[in-house]
């Protein structure tokens, strides 16, 4: 068993979101199927659905379900508005963004480095294989108490938790990518007098790039999850802390308001990844 077995294929990523429907440009013809609906109309429909759900929620709250359990959209919006006006929400958002981005960066660099290193050394990867798998099986969240002991209550422990979640995903994909490199390409480069370093930089890394990107892309939401969990366990700022604090105050509207902020952040991160990927897609013509 090698880590390659569990890695996602670059082409079949779970995180793929269809960017626009293929039939989106057929403005003149009446769309035949609902799935072929134009992007503009789809956005309207999505907004409409959201508004409808919010209305149902608002009406159900206090009538069908206790307001204490599900709060209501108006109260939640009010809470977000208050936080925005007094500026407190930005401190928490910034803390979460900072830890997520830093954790992601550290995890990504460590994951790529580790994946390349073990991918290039069949001996080491065989030697370390059982340990890597044992460690991978440990729920990373369970490491949070350790990280708090090691790094304290500050941002460092959140960064560490985000990084540890990211590092395995990136590692496994990078490792698989490096192992997948066509040996013929390496042999060819060696015959053409390329040095080991040149083979790494000009053959192995470009060839693994598609795999590495899948790992990085999959890891983005996990960086956010790691940070939030770290903040929920012990922190004095951050969106996870906000959820935790509102919960212990029995402030349902506050919990929902913090969750809305987290969801919004996730959407923003996803958009950034999507933009980066579409920029790269034009360039990486890697398929053989």
């Amino acid at each position, binding site marked *: 068993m090698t880590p390659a077995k569990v890695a996602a294929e670059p082409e079949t990523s779970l995180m793929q979101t269809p960017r626009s429907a293929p039939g989106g440009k057929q403005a003149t013809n009446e769309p035949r199927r609902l799935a072929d609906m134009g992007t503009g109309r789809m956005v309207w429909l999505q907004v409409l659905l959201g508004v409808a759900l919010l209305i149902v929620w608002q009406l159900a709250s206090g009538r069908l379900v206790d307001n204490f359990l599900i709060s209501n959209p108006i109260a939640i919006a009010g809470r977000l508005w208050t936080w925005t006006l007094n500026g407190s929400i930005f401190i928490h958002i910034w803390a979460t963004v900072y830890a997520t981005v830093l954790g992601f960066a550290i995890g990504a660099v460590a994951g790529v480095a580790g994946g390349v290193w073990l991918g290039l050394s069949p001996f080491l990867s065989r030697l370390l294989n059982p340990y890597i798998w044992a460690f991978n099986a440990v729920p990373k969240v369970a490491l949070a108490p350790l990280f708090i002991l090691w790094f304290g209550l500050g941002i460092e422990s959140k960064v560490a938790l985000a990084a540890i979640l990211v590092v395995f995903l990136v590692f496994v994909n990078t490792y698989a990518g490096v192992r997948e490199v066509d040996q013929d390409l390496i042999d060819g480069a060696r*015959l053409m007098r*390329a040095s080991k370093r*040149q083979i790494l930089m000009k053959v192995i890394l470009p060839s693994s790039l598609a795999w590495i990107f899948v790992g990085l892309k999959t890891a983005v939401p996990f960086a956010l999850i790691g940070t939030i969990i770290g903040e929920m366990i012990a922190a004095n700022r951050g969106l996870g802390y906000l959820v935790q604090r509102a919960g212990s105050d029995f402030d349902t509207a506050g919990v929902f308001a913090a969750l809305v902020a987290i969801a919004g952040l996730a959407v923003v991160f996803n958009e950034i990844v999507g933009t980066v990927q579409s920029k790269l897609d034009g360039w990486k013509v890697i398929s*053989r």
Partner: protein
Amino acid sequence: MIELQHISKTFKKKESALHAVEDVNLSIAPKSIVALIGPSGCGKSTLLNMIAGLYPPSEGQVFYDGARVTDVNTNVGYMTQKDNLLPWRTVLDNVAFPLEVAGVPQAERYAAAAQLIDLVGLSGFEQKYSHELSGGMRKRVCLARMLIYKPNALLLDEPFAALDAQLRIAMHALLMRLWEEQQQTILFVTHDLVEAITLADRVVVFTRRPASIVLEQEIDLPRPRDVHEVRFTEPFHRIHNALWDRLRTQYDEVRL
């Protein structure tokens, strides 16, 4: 000078063993052109791989200019049967690759690459990627990439198999012209007896797997040869018929 001494190769997989090459002795003089010919899958490519030093023989030794080949042999340029172009690089960047790793400045290596791309008849395709090219075009890109860094010996594994007849003759002429100028040692694998006799100084015929040498035939046709005209000459026919008689017995069992 390339020398093979008692080369045997067996590929072992868990329980089965594939005996690919059996006791091959061959010595190839500098600046000579030698064609290896024999049934498909008989182990000719295995032989080239061992000369290139990609893996060692199970028995015997390979020598290049008197030195034993124990690692990748950077004296030879090797054009493999399957193209090994870097798929994320354009034709131009692929052809320039050997000069790039040698540290040649970009403008200089691009100029050299463009010239060779033109030589193999692919000008206009500099910015294409290999998946946009046909099999024959890819092989010509590989040829250009091999010629750009001027290795002393060329190993060509079925270099012209994917080309149409006219283009093949053009490539034969190109190879002959380059050889007249640069006098490399050329060792090439082919299934085409006409191609072998047209180009080579010596044709070496192999048996079915495990490959061993059945016969070696000197081709004493005068040089420079006109790659198109030479095949209609009387000496060519004499050599061709003699070789074909011997070769045919190798194919009899598969009833071609």
